[in-house]
């Protein structure tokens, strides 16, 4: 687990650092959604697989946005575990792998993505509130607004799908024995 | 010059040194220009039990004990009883025995042989630091006609590390023995023809197998000790580091087989040696070697089974498990040396074959071949080396999306990358797989890979080495392993009396060689099968694998009682006619 006691302002003192965080966050989200899409494919949940691929594509665009914003700047080189995501070891946006289920429905998938965006909002809010550098604070607020927009978009998207019944995860067959 | 040989047995108990005496006598015989063999037999005690050294010397190379022994030297009367079945005597045999000492009230077993009491222990006491076994050495050397100088040369070498006093005492004892033997009946030993130093070797089958392994290219061995294979491992433990190789003592046989598979995956030709119980433990992982196509050699020095059986004695009863013990359809190689010196060639060839075909090879040696020490002609170094088909760096096979580790190809042998080679990454797998090595449960992939693994082994060109065939005629003896020795001697004797008999000693037991076998059996009307197995494993294998023409007779018995040439002659008597002596 990442050390929780440090103030992220000690890590994020410059806009370059903030951009590095932002880039890592979006790139991890692409990876994560692609991974989840593949999991769903293997388990023949193609509707949700397509949705995750779509989410990965959207996150890919966010990666491009951050790269554009970083043009001409030299971002610090941080290893995956050198980022401090405040309340967990993982970058906030991608959604957690352990929340996946092979029978999950589009509603769940969007819920998972939405929670990620909400965590991203919380993260950048925290950075903005603790920033000592004006530029960092300004950029963090912009990122909060952007992530908040994503949350709202996902909320609208989610409304298009019914909330699943309580027995959504019933499997009519027993597990398969492999080896 | 015809064969003349002498058979000598020494027995003793309580750490009396008969093995040392026997070894020195054999080496002295070798130095003098004789060929010879020596086997050991012992009671169950680790130290102090009854022990016997069985020697035979000759002016021609030997592969078997004789039908009976000419001379027995017992350091105490009780020690001989345990070995009566292994030391058959004739009326004209001689037993020299120190009737004093040993087990209380012990007597010599009832035989018709002439008994001579010689107080060797008392004689040794008269020499400062003297030992009865060195008296025995002097006695035996004199009786069989070895010059005292040849014994002294051996003493100098053997006792160098023990200091001048020990050497002096031993020399004095040998001298006493020579003097005492003047009054004993002398035997006519084989003619002594001097040979230049180095032309003859003294080697055991187990050492020979180790030598064959390293000559073939083996540089990694994992080992768990087991009788009677331990000497192979001990020899390799000191020899491999000289060659930049290594022997790892593993925690069990499951570890040793898997360690060698791991090392071979890493590109090092690898081997382990074991005996029946260890082979049984290894079979699952030998199947892994088949499926993942990682070459390894497993040398099984067979002993009496089942279970712990008789761990120190010979039997040829791991044939079934070696051929059929792997689960699933698992094509692999099974080979057996046809003589003690052939342990070099067959093990070396096995390394070559395993590497060439990326498959496991089981070599079935046995206790008799492995633990016999022989004076032999220096064996030739046959140029069979480990050569694995490896894709060249930058070869097209590695340029594609995924390296096709298990590509079917024409021969079934697919080029195998070695870790470290860029672009050649794959996962070796015991799961059935596609040509690229991805796990697959599809019929088509299973069939294709089964065909591949089978074809590469059945389609290989083994040349003439699959068996040793000699002689002519319409009667044939088919045998294998340590049974070949007494069979060869039996046939030599029969042929000397005009009999026309063919011999087939099978070296390559799996895969079967139907075409070669048909050619060998051409015109054969009678077959004798000789094997050391209670359930006729070899006979059943031959029946299952080949069409055997004409009358088929089986001469089988379990271990530990070795075959004698005379017994095989008896089996053939009514087929050969004429003088069968």
């Amino acid at each position, binding site marked *: 687990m*990442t050390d929780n006691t440090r103030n992220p302002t000690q890590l994020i003192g410059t806009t370059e650092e903030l951009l590095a965080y932002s880039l*890592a966050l979006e790139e*991890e989200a692409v*990876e994560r959604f692609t991974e*989840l899409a593949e999991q769903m494919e*293997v388990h023949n949940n193609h509707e949700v697989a397509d949705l995750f691929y779509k989410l990965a594509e959207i996150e890919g665009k966010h990666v491009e946005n951050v790269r554009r914003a970083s043009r001409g700047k030299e971002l610090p*080189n*941080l290893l995956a575990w050198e980022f401090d995501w405040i309340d967990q*070891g*993982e970058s906030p946006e991608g959604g957690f*792998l*352990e929340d996946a*289920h*092979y029978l999950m429905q589009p509603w769940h998938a969007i819920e998972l993505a939405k929670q990620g965006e909400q965590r991203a909002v919380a993260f950048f809010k925290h950075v903005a509130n603790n920033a000592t550098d004006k530029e960092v604070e300004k950029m963090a607020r912009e990122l909060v607004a952007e992530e908040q927009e994503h949350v709202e978009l996902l909320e609208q998207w989610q409304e298009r799908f019914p909330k699943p019944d309580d027995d959504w995860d019933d499997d009519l067959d027993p*597990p398969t*024995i*492999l*080896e | 010059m015809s064969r003349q040989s002498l058979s000598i047995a020494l027995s003793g108990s309580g750490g009396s040194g008969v093995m040392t005496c026997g070894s020195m006598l054999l080496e002295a015989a*070798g*130095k003098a220009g004789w060929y010879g063999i020596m086997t050991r037999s012992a009671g169950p005690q680790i130290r102090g039990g009854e022990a016997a050294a069985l020697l035979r010397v000759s002016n021609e190379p030997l592969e078997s004990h004789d039908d009976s022994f000419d001379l027995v030297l017992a350091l105490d009367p009780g020690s001989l009883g345990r070995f009566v079945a292994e030391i058959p005597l004739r009326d004209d045999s001689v037993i020299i025995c120190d009737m004093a000492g040993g087990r209380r009230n012990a007597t010599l077993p009832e035989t018709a042989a002439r008994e001579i009491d010689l107080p060797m222990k008392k004689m040794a006491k008269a020499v400062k630091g003297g030992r009865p076994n060195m008296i025995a050495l002097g006695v035996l050397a004199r009786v069989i006609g070895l010059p005292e100088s040849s014994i002294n040369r051996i003493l100098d070498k053997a006792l160098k590390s023990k200091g001048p006093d020990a050497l002096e005492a031993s020399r004095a004892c040998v001298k006493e023995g020579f003097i005492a033997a003047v009054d004993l009946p002398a035997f006519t030993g084989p003619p002594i023809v001097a040979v230049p*130093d*180095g032309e*003859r*070797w*003294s080697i055991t089958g187990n050492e020979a197998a180790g*030598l064959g392994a*390293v000559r073939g290219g083996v540089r*990694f061995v994992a080992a768990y000790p087991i009788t009677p294979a331990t000497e192979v491992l001990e020899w390799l433990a000191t020899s491999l*580091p*000289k*060659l*930049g190789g*290594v022997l*790892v003592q593993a*925690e069990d046989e499951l*570890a*040793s087989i*898997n*360690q060698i*598979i*791991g*090392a071979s*995956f*890493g*590109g*090092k030709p*690898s081997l382990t040696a074991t005996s029946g119980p260890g082979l049984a433990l290894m079979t*699952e*992982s030998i199947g*892994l070697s088949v499926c993942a196509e990682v070459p390894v050699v497993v040398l099984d020095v067979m002993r009496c089974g089942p279970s712990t059986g008789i761990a120190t004695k010979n039997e040829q009863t791991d044939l079934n498990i070696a051929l059929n013990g792997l689960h699933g359809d698992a094509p692999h190689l099974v080979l057996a040396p046809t003589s003690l010196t052939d342990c070099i060639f067959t093990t070396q060839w096995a390394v070559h074959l395993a590497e060439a075909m990326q498959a496991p090879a089981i070599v079935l040696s046995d206790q008799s071949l492995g633990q016999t020490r022989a004076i032999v002609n220096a064996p030739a*170094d046959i140029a069979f080396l480990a050569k694995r088909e490896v894709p060249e760096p930058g070869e097209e096979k590695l340029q594609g999306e995924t390296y096709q580790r298990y590509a079917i190809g024409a021969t079934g042998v697919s080029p195998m990358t070695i870790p*470290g080679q860029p672009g*050649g*990454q*794959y*996962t*070796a*797998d*015991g799961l059935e797989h596609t040509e690229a090595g991805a*796990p697959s449960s599809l019929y088509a992939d299973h069939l294709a890979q089964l065909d591949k693994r089978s074809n590469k082994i059945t389609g290989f060109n083994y040349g003439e080495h699959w068996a040793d065939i000699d002689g002519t005629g319409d009667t044939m003896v088919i045998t294998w392993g340590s049974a070949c020795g007494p069979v060869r001697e039996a046939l030599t004797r029969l042929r000397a009396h005009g009999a026309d008999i063919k011999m087939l000693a099978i070296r390559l037991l799996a895969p079967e060689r139907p075409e070669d076998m048909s050619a060998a059996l051409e015109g054969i009307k009678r077959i004798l099968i000789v094997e050391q197995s209670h359930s006729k494993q070899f006979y059943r294998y031959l029946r299952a694998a080949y069409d055997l023409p004409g009358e088929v007779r089986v001469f089988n018995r379990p271990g530990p009682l070795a075959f004698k040439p005379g017994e095989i002659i008896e089996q053939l008597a009514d087929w050969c006619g004429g003088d069968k002596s």
Partner: protein
Amino acid sequence: MTNATTGTGLKAREYKSGIKPVWCPGCGDFTVLGSLTKALSGLQIAPENVAIISGIGCSSRMPTYLSTYGFHGVHGRALALATGLKVARPDLTVIATGGDGDGFSIGGNHFLHTCRRNPDMTYIVMDNQVYGMTKGQASPTTEPNWEKGKLTPSGTGINPFQPLVIALASGANFIARCSSSDQNGTARTIVEAIRHPGFSLVQVLSPCVTFRPEQRDWKKLVQPAPVEATSDPARAARRLLTDKGLFTGVLFKGNRPPYQPLLEPGIDNIAELDEEFRL
């Protein structure tokens, strides 16, 4: 080192083979796969110089999913395969992976002796306290009163195997526990384990969402151990006395030299070996 995610050099995803895992979605092993690829990327080892070795079980499918060399062997023998490879090829980075059944039950003897032998390699055990591939039987690390194992319907009634205790007692040179809920922390620990000479054990609590769904709660229960790693086995042992299995972090970093025989020839010509046989 370069950034595992955003930097130059080989990225984490380039250590994946592209074969899609058969694990159940939600399985902790997905995260460990991510940790492993991030660790390899962090170390920037060329994939051809890495070998991932495994036995049988869900987590033992790991090698197939990586772009390194790999060996998926038989049940319980991963450490023996890996030891053979490492001794024969000390130049390679050898990592064994597997589960609690493979490593501590059928492979228990090899675990003991590999700790003892201390070859320079890393063993990542994804511990879910259950046999997943055979449909949910109790494993050596299962708690004694777990009654859902079909072969032990009244619970196993026997003490769970304690990997860290056994590893310490047997001589492992680096001992750590991670949680699959912390992908980056696990990646960091794997890097440390690979770099530390000798045999490194990394136990990863990795939930089985199919047969032990309650393990999803591990995420909330695990916590970093309150103390730093020690090089003193006695201190490490005392810490384990109060360990309930949910502390994460590096417990022990020893300084025993790894097992690695020299592989340098002492003679020029193999024919020199013949001399000992000549009369």
